[in-house]
Each structure stands twice: as C-alpha cells, then as structure tokens.
C-alpha cells in the first residue's frame, strides 16, 4: 500500500470535483435555457433547440471533448483564458473540458426540465395567462419553479453521470483521476487490482452522498398534489 503515497491521489480527485462543479453549474443554466427555447413561441428557437439537443445527445462525449481541444482551441484559437504564464495551457484544457461537458450535459438537463414542465398541471399556466402574464413571466414565475422541484431526482442522475463523465477529460490531458489511474496501472502493475479498488472507492465516495442528498431533497421539495 506504500506506493499510494507516491501519487497525488487527492489532487487528482480534487480536479475531478472541480470539473464536476463548474460543469454542473454551466449545464444547469444551459439546459434550462435550451428547455425554455424548446417551449418558446418563437419557431426558430424551438427548431434550434430541438436540433441541438438531438444532435449533441447522439454524439459521443469523447468526440466532443477531443473536438473542443482540436477544433476550438487548436483550429479556432479559442483559449478561454488571458493567462500568459506557463499555467495557461492547463487552465485552457480545464476550461475546454468544462465547456465540452456543459454543451453535452446541457442536453440531458434540457430533456429533464422539459419533462418536468410537462408535469405541471395545465391549470397553472392557464391561470397565469388569465392574469395577463406573458410567456416569459409564465415560464419563469409559475411553471419553471414547480417544474424544477419535480425534476430533482432526474437531475441527480444527470449530476452523477456527469461526475463519472469527467474522466473523459483525460483525452485532452486534464490531470484528473482517470489519467492518474492509467499512470498507476502502468507503473504499479502488480498491484493493479488495488489501484482500481482505490479509484472505485473514490468514485463511490463522490457519487453516493450526492445521490442520497438529492434523493432526500427531491422528496422534500416535491410538489404535493
């Protein structure tokens, strides 16, 4: 077990946590915007959001992550940072990975939110319209607050999936848990099963509390009908 202390396990998992955190916030916002567009009265927005969700959801995440680095950064020169020090590259890679996760995970958030919107009784929106509220007000003041409460559980699954998906950032050299696991499997082959166990436990520790917490939250905030 001694060799474990030769590696920065906590550092790698901390990167995983940071990737998850920023991607989750971004994906939540982007997903709600997409869902809003999909139910909006403007045809073009509906068409865009539908096409976007259907295309991105059917593309492998690995391809999106690789494309963010090879396409966006290398070909288009988008570095997402003004940093000029030697740390710039690491910052760029981290942010590109977050961007890829947001673009991808946003589609799943959008689908969850849209199904949540469908659970809000028709009367709610009708009452809002009767009061003279417009589409944007109806959506943000009446429908979304109720819809979001009913989709905590599906969103929790999305968050857990996102946590695990951050390992794909290894493809563009972000130093997170999967990169360290690969390095350790190569260097410490004889203890490979132990290495795997360590990383498996790490992910159970990361995802289990999230599942339990959000499961409890979803029961607590559920709209009683």
């Amino acid at each position, binding site marked *: 077990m001694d060799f474990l202390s030769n590696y920065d396990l906590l550092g790698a998992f901390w990167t995983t946590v940071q990737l998850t955190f920023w991607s989750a916030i971004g994906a939540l916002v982007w997903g709600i915007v997409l869902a809003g567009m999909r139910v909006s009265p403007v045809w073009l927005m509906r068409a865009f959001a539908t096409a976007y969700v259907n295309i991105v959801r059917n593309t492998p995440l690995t391809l999106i992550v*690789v494309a963010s*680095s*090879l396409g966006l*950064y*290398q*070909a288009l*020169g988008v570095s997402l940072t003004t940093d000029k020090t*030697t*740390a*710039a*590259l*690491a910052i760029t*890679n981290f942010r590109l990975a977050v961007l890829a996760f947001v673009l991808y995970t946003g589609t799943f958030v959008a689908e969850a939110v849209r199904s949540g919107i469908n659970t809000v009784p028709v009367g709610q929106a009708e009452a809002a319209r009767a009061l003279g509220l417009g589409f944007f007000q109806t959506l943000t003041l009446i429908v979304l607050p109720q819809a979001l409460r009913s989709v905590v559980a599906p969103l929790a699954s999305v968050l857990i999936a996102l946590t695990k998906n951050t390992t794909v950032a*290894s*493809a*563009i*050299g972000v130093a997170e848990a999967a*990169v360290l696991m*690969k*390095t350790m499997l*190569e260097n410490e082959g004889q203890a490979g099963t132990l290495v795997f166990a360590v990383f498996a436990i790490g992910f159970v520790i990361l995802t289990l509390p999230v599942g339990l917490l959000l499961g409890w939250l979803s029961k607590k905030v559920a709209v009683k009908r």
Partner: protein
Amino acid sequence: MRLSPVLRAGALVATLALAVTACGGKSQQVNSSSSLVDRAKADNKLTVGIKFDQPGLGLKTANGYTGFDVDVAKYIAKKLGVDENNITFKQAPSAQREDLIAQGDVDLVIATYTINDKRKQKVSFAGPYFVAGQDLLVKADNTSITGPDSLNGKKLCSVTGSTSAQTLQTKYANQVSLQNYGGYSECITGLLNGAIDAISTDDIILQGYAAANQGKLKVVGKPFTTEPYGIGFKKGDTKTQQALDEYIQAMEQDGSWKAALQKNFGSDYKVPSEPPITEK
C-alpha cells in the same frame, strides 16, 4: 407468455456470443521452446509488431503498411525465408511492446523500440538498426526554437506518459508548459495550427512527420539524447539475436538500408552513418 420464446432465443444468443468471443480470444499456443529463426523458416510465417500511426516509420494506409520499420521487417522476413505476403503486421503501442513479446502475440517488435536495461529484463534485442536522438519538431518558419534550452515559455506537446516528455520536463520543466494528448497526431495538428510551439520525441519519428507535411514542419536537428532502436523478441533467444544482427548488417552493406531511409524520409534527408551492433 408471448415473449418467452423471444427471451429464450435471446438467452441462447447471449450464451453463444459469450462462447464464441471466449474461444476467439485464446491465442494459439506456439511452440516457444524452439528458436524463432527455425520456427519462421518452418512455418513460413512471421508476426511483427509495428506502429500504425507514425508516418515514415510505421503507418497503416489504404494500400497496406509503409515506413522504415516496415521495410526493415520485410528485409528480415526475406532473409528468414518468409514470403512478404506471409508477414502479419500488428499494432504495437509503446506501452504494450514488452507484453506483446512476452505473451507470444508477436514474434518481433520493430516499432521505434529503444534498447535500454529496464526493457532488457523482459525482452531481448538485436541491433540497433538505427540510432535516433530526441529532438524537436517546429514550424518551418520558426527561428526562435533552436534546442531544448530555448523552450522556456513555449508550449510543448507530447503523448500522455511518454518518456521523452518526462525527460524534457525534468531537465527543462520549470519554464515549459506541457500539453499531453492521447496520440501524436493531435500534437501535429496543434503545431500546424500554431496552438503548439514544439513537439519532442525521437528525431526519426519527427522526420517522418516533417516528410508527411512537406515544407510546413522542420526538425531542429540538434538531438540531445541517444536512442538506439533495436528489434525486440522473446528473452533469451540467442540464435535469433545472432541471425538478426547478421541480417541488419547485410541490409546496411547492400545499400537497402540507405535506400529505405531515403524512400521514407525524402531524398534530401541526410542519411546518418550505420550504427555499430551492440546487442550480441
């Protein structure tokens, strides 16, 4: 009840699939006690591990395999009495080369395989058939990078876990930012696009990329390490070692060695002198 025949059929398919894949996976046991030289002659078969994605050395193309390593393999095969059509090329990624040999998946590894003591504990080498050195690949119009010392503040690209990157990092790491990718092709596009300033690995590998992107990329030409490439095979097979050393020398002497280098790296490539055989 309606679907139960479907279910049963599904289960049958699953079992079959398991069985088939399990059988397909077993590699055929070869008689490992006899020397490769005898075995190759007797079976008229040779399996060689090469790189599949390195222009100039080992590249899988629409018309088969090309590169210097491939030409060396074909020459060796001819000397062993194996027809060119009976050579099987397998992909030998850097991290798996020792295992491929140890498990008998390949007879020979000719895949930019640097001879060193750590590897010699697991496999035997013949050669070297080429001595490379770690160098830098930059854009053709780049004048600011002249060697490893001028990398400060530049972006260097390498493959995750590669030793050449680690060497550079320990010597010059403080001022260079390192980009890791899964393969060199990502590094090359970055270099062409200007997102990456330099790529570091063995000069002959870089030469292959330079030749594949004629006029756009150049090798700096100041190697700062020595990497003797050998042919790897099962540890302890001395008969094969002697034979291979002999064939390598023959290739160097009859001109095919130089011709193969010029064919793969262009006629303006400066062919170095033949390296002396060290693995005897």
